[in-house]
């Protein structure tokens, strides 16, 4: 009786060992080779400096900046777009990376920079584009923020919906073109221009990808 009990116990261990080894093998084997994140044709390099009359100027950031510990200069654009009258200014942060860990929640970064979040809503700019629309305040001045996530095929409003899609695609061995986020901000009186600029940016990214 005791031997049978011992045998049962060993059998259970063998089952566990077998399951673990099997799981290790199937989890770490690529059955298809179509999940490669190919950024060789990086749309960032060709992202226009002139968009509907807004002229863009790259913001100078020191190479020692912590930002570049996370990602390379090829994966991010930090640009200030303005109209010739110099009144309408829009800040663009565009990240298109090969790794989702490089796409952060912008609320955290901007809060740490001193932006106070006053009001947040989701607005629909186009059938394929819902964006986060946030009113913020920094040093007594109000700003409007707009941001959304993209994989260059679809857009996502929340990080969770973006991650969910990534996980599903990965599980089904579908390719992911890129891990991206688009952040725009401007002084509060510039709302309509911000919406137009967001639509244009989205069209450029989805058409060129």
């Amino acid at each position, binding site marked *: 009786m005791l031997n049978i009990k011992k045998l049962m116990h060993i059998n259970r*261990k*063998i089952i566990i060992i077998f399951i673990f080894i099997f*799981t290790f093998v199937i989890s770490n084997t690529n059955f298809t080779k179509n999940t490669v994140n190919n950024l060789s044709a990086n749309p960032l390099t060709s992202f226009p400096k002139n968009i509907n009359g807004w002229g863009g100027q790259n913001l100078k950031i020191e190479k020692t900046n912590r930002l570049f510990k996370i990602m390379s200069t090829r994966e991010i654009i930090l640009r200030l777009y303005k109209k010739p009258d110099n009144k309408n200014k829009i800040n663009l942060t565009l990240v298109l990376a090969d790794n989702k860990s490089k796409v952060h929640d912008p609320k955290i970064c901007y809060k*740490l920079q001193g932006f106070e979040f006053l009001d947040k809503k989701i607005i629909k700019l186009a059938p394929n584009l819902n964006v986060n629309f946030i009113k913020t305040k*920094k040093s007594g001045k109000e700003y409007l923020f707009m941001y959304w996530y993209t994989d260059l095929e679809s857009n996502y409003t929340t990080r969770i919906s973006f*991650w969910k899609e990534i996980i599903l695609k*990965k599980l089904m061995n579908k390719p992911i073109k890129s891990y991206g986020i688009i952040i725009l901000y401007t002084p509060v009186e510039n709302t309509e221009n911000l919406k137009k600029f967001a639509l244009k940016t989205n069209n450029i990214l989805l058409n060129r990808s």
Partner: protein
Amino acid sequence: MKKFSFNLAVLFALCLLYLKHFPLWAKEWFDFDSFYSFFPFLILFGIQFFKIKTEELKKTEINPTNLGLIPLTTGILIYYTGIKSEVDFLSGLSLPLLISGIILFLYGKKIFMIILPVIILFSLSLPIIPIFRLTTPLQIFLAGAAAKILNFLNINASAVGSNIFIGKYLVTIEAGCTGVRSLSSLLVVNFLLFYFKNISVLKKVSIVLFSLLISFVGNIIRILLINFYIIYNGIKGAEGFHYYIGLGVFIISLLIILVINEFIEDDKIVEYKEINAY
């Protein structure tokens, strides 16, 4: 010929699953600047725990339960999803589930309940929690508090987000400056010292709350000292000062906890004996 150990084989198979995670986790566990640097204290806790509980574990009846298949299956599915989707949080999260599943499936509920504290602490030590989400409000609060104290001392300073502007200098409160790092280590040291002490739960909770307070106040003092250093000496050498002052605050906090440990005596257990009246 030496007998084949199936226990070792199970452990090996489990380690195989996390082979590619271990280098990254080990880097976090043994880096003083990391939130997870309390891991060495956890090893001490584990050794002490199993030393004390060996007899109890030996005496406890092994009664495997198929209930262990629930955490095992869940753990396997989460692991698979985590690895395939490259979400380290998921693959890391599967480890405590698999450990729990193994123990329930092989040894049963009683043994599982005995070693549950070690499983919980080990789970917390896995470097998968997005700590920066917890520290953001603290970073902003501490920058504001430090600027207010400096203003109170007639020093011109202002806080914007997690940045403190003092004259021409800018001091940024990083996640590590919020005290969560020393707090995590202090909490594990607390666990190590007071878990085995025969004191009431109320006392244990009070000690944990007290270490929270020590860590919080210690870090405000640390930030102020760094600010004073920059005001009087400039930015040169501030990085080194920042490191040593952090270490100093941690050692002082640790000493306070050790002193408390010395002074707290075990609660007396009063035994009522029935007296035979006849």
